[in-house]
């Protein structure tokens, strides 16, 4: 299943990121999760929102964007929860490019987003091991 993540190329300059976020706010987009990878020159702003189609439409107008599928795996609230998931992926030779965590509400729980080199294999593997993951419908209205 996996979920859609939208990435935006942002210049590493004051005012650039805020402009993007403002646009999403004005258009009623709810940001579920986000992370920024920064270099001296530019940043890559990655987003999971309640409506990826609309988000892409809004952001693509003035920005370079990229859509990728990522895995959002539920983390149990106990030591070793992240280790268990990463270990499953690692054992299967799946490479993690980056990851970040998010939570939506007290009842929703904690999730870690994985960007991997083989998203389909990762999804299948986690399903088999009984790790709960999100799909696009899950994040429409939480």
């Amino acid at each position, binding site marked *: 299943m996996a979920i859609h993540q939208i990435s935006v*190329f*942002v210049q590493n300059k004051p005012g650039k990121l805020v402009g993007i976020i403002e646009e999403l706010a004005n258009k009623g987009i709810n940001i579920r999760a986000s992370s920024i990878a920064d*270099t001296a020159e*530019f940043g890559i702003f990655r987003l999971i929102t309640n409506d990826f189609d609309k988000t892409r439409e809004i952001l693509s107008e003035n*920005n*370079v964007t*990229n859509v990728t599928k990522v895995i959002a795996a539920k983390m149990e609230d106990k030591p070793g929860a992240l280790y268990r998931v990463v270990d499953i992926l690692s054992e299967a030779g799946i490479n993690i490019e980056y990851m970040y965590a998010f939570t939506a509400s007290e009842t929703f729980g904690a999730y870690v987003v994985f*960007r991997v080199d083989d998203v389909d294999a990762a999804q299948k593997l986690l399903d088999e091991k009984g790790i709960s993951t999100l799909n696009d419908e899950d994040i429409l209205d939480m």
Partner: protein
Amino acid sequence: MGNYFQPEIETASREEILSIQNEKIVKQVKHAYENVKYYRDLMDEKGVKPEDIKGVDDIKKLPFLSKADLREAYPYGLLGTDLKNCVRIQSTSGTTGKRVVAFYTQHDIDLWEECCARAIVAVGGSNEDVVQVCYGYGLFTGGAGIHGGSHKVGSLTLPMSSGNTERQIQFMMDLGSTILCCTPSYAAYIGETLAERGYKPEDNKLKAGIFGAEPWTEEMRRSIEQSLGIKAYDIYGLTEISGPGVAFECEAQNGMHINEDHFYVEVIDPETGEVLPEGSKGELVFTSLDKEAFPLIRYRTRDICVLSREKCSCGRTHVKMTKPMGRSDDMMIIRGVNVFPSQIETVLLNEGYTPNYQIVVDRVNNSDTLDIYVELAPDQFSDIVSVTQKREKKLESAMRTMLGIGPRIHLVPPKTITRSEGKAVRVIDNRKLHD
């Protein structure tokens, strides 16, 4: 009155020089017509025969050559002799991918080196001097030309090539260099580094410097003279015509004497190609007068200059040219290397980028910087940092290969490059190069 390397020719009367030129031009045009098919075709097209050229006054009947012709004829199309007679090539950048390749016979090398020797003697050089050559060695003509000239003078030659400033300074101080030859920006950099190391201008043995291959101002001259405790002289040349030493500055420091016994000079209107009266500002056009391997007739330099025949206090009689006051094309000289925006465009298109770019040239700490801003296309963007950075590095390396100098690449979002009246501003040169 100063010293001359070849006093009889350097101080020859105007009549003598003209008579030498008249004699040589007839032979040179005949040589080009008979041996260079490319130029023969151009002459035939214009309906000019070698017999029509009886002296330099007839030169205006002949067709021009430009950098575009050199690209067209690459590599052997303008060669005027058998390769077995050639002993050297030198090369410079062309307007797009192809480089300009110039060929030399031993005769051509000798006349080029003699011109450089004249330049060295004009700044006070002799066999008692230690000449430190920190122009680049290799395909670039800077190192090779001055090196050969220094040998002809009999000076002790230090073939340093460019870079490694620590070693430059060590040799300069330990071996007592008296004449420094490099780009003016590198001279300024050496001066600053010496000061940082606690050396005063009088601590070195330098007396003069011959600085060329890039534009520089009178202000920069004064600053170099102060920081190194020397007299700083300009030198002019281009690979197509031979290399440095086509013209050089004398003790008067107010213009460069063109070696008129080897190169015939005209100033033209860059728009119409019409020859302008002496003293007018226009584009310099050179005709080689006695080259064997690479005879170029009416080669358009794109450098904008003024010529002067005012009597020079040094006693030399050859015409003087001002420092180039600009270009009639979009060529930039960055760290002594010729760079055309079209080359940058070629690389961008080859690498799959849009031709939306901006070049920013600046001079920081006396060294030129080249920044290229490139608009990123959606299919070149990855959410993974290392992938996007790798792409940036790949473009940088392709640029380095094409240009011969390494730029800094900045990927920017689309539509972020400044446009004025809808047209992108391609080049921003923040250096102050002309007075």
